Each structure stands twice: as C-alpha cells, then as structure tokens.
C-alpha cells in the first residue's frame, strides 16, 4: 500500500483495516505518535490527514490512502521549530511528555482553521487527555503561538484549512 507520509511516498505492508497508528509506529518506526487508549478517547495518537486532526488508533489505513498524512515528526525541526513548539518550550508545557505529540498536532490543526482561538475554541478542540495536568500551559502556549509574529512553517496545518468546518464552541473557560 502506498501512503503519503510527511511529504514522502511510503510503502506499507498493511491490511486495509490496520489502524494507521500501528503502521506508523511498528512498521515505519515513526514512534512520535503515541498509543494511549485504542478507542479514540485520549488523543495521544493524533496526526493530520489532509490538515485535519485525526485519531490514528481508529483510522484504518485504507481510509487515508492518497491523502496527505502528517505526524509530529514533520511539525518542525530543531532548526525550524513550529510556532507551537516554540511556545511549548517558552511555556514549559511538557511533564512526562507522553501526550504532548497528540496535543501539539491537535493544537496545530486548531490554529490552522482558527488562527486566534478563544478559550472556548481551545476547550472545544483540545479534548486530548493529559494525566500530568499540563492543560493550563497548553492553553497558554496555544495563545502564545497564535499571537507570535512567526508564520507557521508547517505546510500541513495551513494547507487545507478551508476544507474544515469550525467546531461549535460550547466549552466554558475556567
């Protein structure tokens, strides 16, 4: 099966119903994307598919053939970090760090469609679970990145912003 991952055509020897998560982790050794629950409840496995935040643990690989798949490994580099990665460091977000790949990918998709999210937008979009409780710093980092002058270097996050619909903002700010 041919997949487009982080801008590269990649061959994966996978059955159609195999979740994308395990193709990434166990076949392609892209271990930045994490396994947390297996039922799309925690968000640790969040990747971008055509710019949308998708939970790869329940996404069959057949559903993403021909689509632009982006993982945390392509969000930014040490030389050219994504605005969110810079904000993550400035706000000292990570603790154990396990959920942070998913948090960053969810946040990147949010900023791509809502460049200046409100707290309610963040509550609605960021349903990832973090047991270390980094939420208030994640929130601060998203606001910081949204207000940073640096354009986001991630092509995936901006490319298909037009194709997504804004989530209803129902959460309330703490």
């Amino acid at each position, binding site marked *: 099966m041919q997949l487009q991952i982080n801008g590269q055509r990649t061959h994966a020897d996978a059955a159609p119903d195999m979740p994308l998560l395990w193709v990434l982790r*166990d076949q392609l050794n892209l271990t*930045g994307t*994490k396994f947390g629950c297996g039922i799309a409840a925690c968000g640790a496995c969040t990747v971008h598919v055509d710019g949308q935040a998708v939970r790869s643990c329940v996404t069959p690989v057949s559903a993403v053939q021909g689509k632009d798949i982006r993982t945390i490994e392509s969000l930014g580099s040490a030389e050219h970090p994504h605005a969110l990665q810079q904000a993550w460091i400035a706000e*000292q977000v990570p*603790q154990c760090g396990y959920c942070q790949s998913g948090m*960053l990918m969810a946040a990147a998709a949010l900023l791509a469609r809502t460049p200046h999210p409100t707290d309610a937008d963040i509550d609605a979009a960021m*349903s990832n679970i973090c047991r270390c409780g980094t939420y208030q710093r994640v929130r601060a980092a998203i606001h910081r990145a949204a207000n940073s002058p640096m354009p986001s270097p991630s092509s995936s996050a901006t490319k298909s912003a037009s194709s997504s619909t804004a989530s209803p903002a129902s959460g309330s700010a703490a």
Partner: protein
Amino acid sequence: MKRRTILLSALGAGSALLVGWGVAPPRSRLGSADSMLPTQGSVGLNGWIKIGEDGSVALAMPRSEMGQGVHTALAMLAAEELDIPLDKVRLEQAGPDAMYGNVAAVLAFLPFHPKQTEEGQRSATVKTAQWLTAKVGRELGLIMTGGSSSVADAWEPVRLAAASARASLAQAAAAQWQVPVGELVFKQGKISHASGKEGHFGEFAAASAKLNPGNVSPKARKDWTLIGSPAPRMDLWAKSSGSATFGLDVRLPNMVFAAVRLCPMIGGSVQSVDSAAALALPGVLKVIPLKPSHGASAGLAVVGKTTWHARQGAQALQVQWAQRPQGALDTTQAAEQLQAQLAKEEGYTFHERGTPAASQDTLSATYSAPYLGHMTMEPMNCTAWLQDGKLSVWAPAQVPEAAREAAAKAAGLPLAKVEIHITLLGGGFGRRLEVDYVVLAAQVAMALPGQPVQLTWSREEDSAHDFFRPMHVAQLQASHDGQGQVQSLQIKSAGDSISPRWMERVLPAFAGPFDAPDKTDSEGLFDLPYGFAHQKMAHVATKVGIPVGFWRSVGHSHNAFFSESFIDELAAKAGTNPLAFRQQWLQDAPRHLAVLNLAAEKAQWGKTLPEGQAQGIALHESFGSIVAQVARVSLEGGTLRVHEVFCAIDCGTVVNPAIVAQQMEGSVVFALSAALWGQVDIVQGEVQQRNFHQHHVVGMAHAPQVHTYIVPSERTPAGVGEPGVPPLAPAVANAVFALNGQRLRSLPLKA
C-alpha cells in the same frame, strides 16, 4: 538469611525509627569511578561525575523521569557546583551500586509525627533511630524513584560529588599551570587563570582522577546561580518534537511485538485455551502462556508482526478462565468488610497525646474513599531480548534493580545475565513501582530466543490489572469542652496496607513473615499539625485482597480528605470561619500557619464572589512539604466545577521554582480527576472501568487555573511531586459546603 534481610526485618518489626536522612554521611555515597560505566576517552572522578575528552560532564542518574522533572533537578545540582551550563550535563543511567539507593525514600516509610523530627526537637531516641535507619537505608541500596524523595536524597551526595570533581580538576589545572588553586576561575565549563591560561575539563580529567580532592564542601547558598532559578527543563525539545524515547518507543533490529490477554478475574487462572483461531490470523506468530508472579496476573501473550497483529490475536484467543480459589473479589463486599472491621477492632495506634476527658458535646462523622487506578498515559509495556543466554530489558520503571531481579527470576537466569535499560516514563504515579509488566515481558522473551520483543498492554488490560489505591473508611470524632472549644480528636480508619503487599511483590526477599504497622495507612491522619490537647489516631489494617499499590501521595491522598473535611466541620460547629479556625489551632505550627496564610491572602479569602460560587480551603503536610489550597467552585446545573486554585507550598529549599509550579498544577488536575470521578468497581473479580470512556479524567475544559506561591525557605529540600495532591479534594468539598451547606463525606464527590 542475608544480612540486609535481617536488618530489614528488625526495621519492619515496628521499632520506632525515623525519617529525615540528614544524619547519613553523604561522603559514604560519593562512590568510586568504577561505579560508572567506563566509556572511551572518559574519566570517572567519582560515582556520580565523569568527564569526557571534550570536557563534557556525565552525571550518573539513578532516578526515573516520569514528568516530575527529576532529571533536570539533579542535573542542576551538579551544574551548580561545576559552574557549567545545564545543557552541558549529559545523563547516564546509574548502575546497580548500592550507593545510588534512595535512602530518603526508605526512611520515610517509618512512622513518626513530623514534630518529633524537627531540627532541635529530636530526642536522643529519635537521633539514635535516625542513625540506625540511615545505615539500614544505605545497606539496602534500594534504587527507587518514589515518595517525592529524589531531590531530598540527592541533595548532599550529588552536590558533594560535583564539588569534589571540581576540586580535583582545579588541583590538576593549578599543578599544570603552576598557579595557586585559589586564582582559578570556573565558568561555562572552562577553567581559566588571569595569566590568560584557559582549558576545558577534559584537559585535566586524567590528572585530576589521581588526586584526592580532600575535605570539600558544596557552594555556599549565597553563591548559587542555578539552584533556585526557573531553568528550562532539559527535556523540553525532545518532548515537544516526538523524539523522546518512552518504553513503547524502543525499536530493535527484527523486533516483534506482543499483546497480553490476562485473566479478567483478579487472582484467577487459565483453565483452558484454544489458540487455533488466533494463530490462524495473518501476522500472528506465537501464543505464550504467562505464569503469575511478582503480582502479575495469569494469562497469555500473543506475539505478532506488529502490536496490531498481536492485539488481534489476543482478542481471538478462546480462553476459559477460573475464579481464584478463595472466591471472587468484589468492591461492595470490600466496603462492608471495612465498615465491619472498623466497628469491631481497635487497630494499631499511630499517635496518642493526652487522655480525652468525658464530654457530652461531641461531633462524629464517617468518611470513605474508593479504590482508584493510576491510568498512566503510557500503558504498561516492556521490551526484552534474550541473546546468547543474556537477557536485556528495556523498561519504563521506577525500581530498576527490583525489576532486573524480577526479570532474572522469571527468566531463570542468574542476575549477572540480566541487564536493564530505563527509558523515560509516560507517567508513573506509583504504578511503575511494580515489576509485573517486566516479569511478563521476560517470560515472553525467554520463549523467543534471539528475538527482541516488545510487550504492550491494551488500555483495558492496564486498567484491569492495576495495583489500586486501597479503599479506606474513617471514623472521626471530636469532643468539646463547655465553651465549645475542641478538646480531643480521635480518628480510627480501616483499609488494606500497601507496603507489606508491595514488598511481597517487588522485594520478595525482604518481605516479613507478618505485617508491621504501615505508616502509609495512617499518614495524613496521625500526623496533623493542629494543637488539640488530646489526640488518638489508630488504623485497622484489613486484608481484603484486592491488589493495592502506591498511588500519588499514597495514604495522604484520601486521609487528607477525611481530616481536612472534618476540620472544616469543626469550624462550622464552632461557628468560626474555616480559615480563622485553622489559624487558631496552628499557633504552635508556624510553618503551617505561614503556608495557610499565604494561600488565603493570594486567593483573597472571603472576598465577594459571583453568585453561585464559593471558596474552600485545606492545608496538608506530606513528604516533608506543606501545601495549602483555596479552591473556587460552582455548581452549574448540578455540575461541580472548580474554576481556580490558589496553591501555596513550603517545600524547603527550592531547586527549580518552575518545576514546583508545574507539579502543583499537575497535582491539582490529578487530584481533581479523582475527586470528581475517580472510582474503580470490581464485580465478580472483574474491574468495571476499563478505558477512558468509563474512567473519566479531567480534560482541558474542566482544568482549573492554578496559581502557585512558594514560601521562601532555607531548609533541606522536601517533596514536590506529591504534596500538591492531598489538599485538593477537601478544599473542593469544603467549598461545596460553603456554597450549599452540603457536607460531602465520600469520594468521588457527588454534589
């Protein structure tokens, strides 16, 4: 019997031994260069510090990083003494040498009231006990990350080791340059002299290794430039780019993957298995029976080309399970058993002061807390590889040496044939103080000689086969004199003891023939700071049999809810403001009072709040630190929301205030999940809450804003990872009472 076994039995026999490891001479934990792994071109200067050819500094790291920031904090101690930038410290996993054992954690197991261990307050008995216990702790060499003890334990030895290394390097440079040692300047990893001479550490390492640094002291507090600063954690980029390596990220050549299918009934066994359907699936390679030991459940492992194939295979297994012979475990029955034993038995008295006079005016209440799971984000996993009779293990473990010994035992190999690599931990919270997941991976690796295998548990298996925070119940009673003043406080609690069960699983060689009183049962009840004249706190140790383990802040996590809620009840009965009531009874506890007042001041205690909101306050000491929290809550349409928490802490000398703030924020969220929703039910031996849709935890939309304030202190550093947890539940429950007069006496809070 081994010598250390005897020492530990003596210790476990309930002798009044104590906490605080100040008396253990840190010099005995400097170690020698042989303690560190020899690497090409590097020169070890002692058991902690090794200098590279390029002048780089390696620090032996015996503690596991699970989010609490310990790698950064310990590196800061070394960097401070050597005057090098923090990012120039390279961490190297420490070996099995006993010098890396966590003496502070061992000592903290012993039951003493904090007042007895205050500097200047210690009796001769306490001092003797300290000395003896410190010796035992060093002898044990228990390499463990837990009990919020890492910085307290490393404080003297790591600073001394780095200072000694610096002294040796200085001597070598002075000798080479023929200048007085006192004229050398250490800056940014370089040594220089006013004459223009300059060199990096690597140039003097070989010469300095032959020198005796003599009697060295760490830097004076006034000279610190790094300790006390909010230095960025060393792991920020790795954890913001997906490049940090957790247990699940270990990748080895030709590795295969395995999944577990464990007996769903706790303590049960496999009656029969039909593996045909599983083995018929594509990508499924092998089915391996798993023997229960070290707390691990009976079951099977399925090996596949990927974790997905293995998971498919595990689901396809046809297994007949059998209940445990003693009958099914059940949390409803556990609650009944606890209530019955609490009513009937006297228990072990952990603290007694004065004799309560008879009083007609009493207040009593019964509180309870359920079993709780850990739910680390990274599910249990371990990677193992049997090669040429040698087993290599990669594990995200809090107890590396116990894990290695358990792996050797499970594999039937001599200890020398087993090596362990500690990865980053995707959360620990006490779950990774266990070795069950290592034992299972070792068994799988032994069945696949030559083939590296990664064993990953599903979230459902992880939730079902946890070692839960034990259910506890407590009866609290206060009597008042004729003027309505509190005269006595009596507390009796009941619940399973954790420490003896943990010893049986993790350190079986040290487990005693009977259960000594376990401090963790009563911590947070027997050690209260309030000056009530008469106090008696006892605990009835039950043996329900549901597997119990250490859960972030352990006994304090539920006992603080019991005690600090009841203190609030006493304030209400006295018709006094909860803050003023506490202040009144803390006249002999100035540190507690200062923390309480700081939180109250920052939260503007008593200010007018929006309609439908209220504040609650709680104060608690644990792991040597004192934390007070003021929670602002509301009940919107019957839903309890915590909007904001003001948190004050006295944790002694602060190494990194930014990490302290992180830990306070994280502790509040962790504790809030438990306070609002945390509960594990076991029916017919089976855990009912198996994944995040059943085991709700706080998410972004429910996370309160936490404001952290630190009380300046020059005391020895104390705990940070756990002390923020205990006060949260009572602060929230007390706020609910302030809001609607409803007193919530059981967890989770049902407002």
